[in-house]
């Protein structure tokens, strides 16, 4: 099944809301800073598990953090 649309996110905005650096969020979510960086920039599409973990760390819902566009 083909996947259509582009995954967008509000990671940077939510991170800024909590005054967290990429390194802070990475450490709290248990991943590397470059993972946060590539997810934020739309280079890397995270797994459901990572998306859930990021949302829980930032205190938001997954669909408030990620959505499909197009």
């Amino acid at each position, binding site marked *: 099944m083909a996947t259509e649309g582009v995954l967008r996110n509000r990671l940077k905005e939510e991170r800024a809301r909590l005054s967290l650096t990429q*390194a*802070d969020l*990475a*450490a*709290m979510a*248990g*991943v*590397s*800073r*470059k*993972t946060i*960086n*590539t997810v934020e*920039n739309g*280079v*890397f599409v*995270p*797994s459901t598990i*990572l998306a859930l973990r990021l949302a829980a760390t930032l205190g938001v819902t997954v669909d408030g953090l990620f959505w499909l566009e197009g």
Partner: protein
Amino acid sequence: MDPQQRSTAEAGERIARKRVRLIWLQAVLFTVWQGGFFATHVATEPLRNVDTVRIAAWLVWALALLGMLLTGGGWVWGRAVRRLLNDELSVHNRHEGQRAGFWGAAGACLLVYFLSFYEPIRPRDVVHLVLTLSIGAALFRYAWLERRGERGD
């Protein structure tokens, strides 16, 4: 964030950057070394002692690189740091590297197939060529993706 968490994260970042540099270096050295092998080796039997040592060293080196490509390496570090080193993005990049390695191996096989019409090729040389192109392609792709992740483009 607790100090232990921060210290593990910082160690993971530092080691990850070193690992990227090491993968680049290994990719270049391994490919260049093999280039030298094909440029200078003479197909004589029995092998001289120096050739046996050289081939054994190359085999150990190739196996170590294959092990690194299979597991992500970082064996000397603790579990927490290793989990950061081989997090979701790194595992994805490593799998992309393995995919590049597959195409490198397929390309090498095609090359050997066409070369064999013009010149007989010994099985051992075929192994050298296939391993060089597959491991080289995998390492270059892996290192490039890891570097891209660090740069953030």
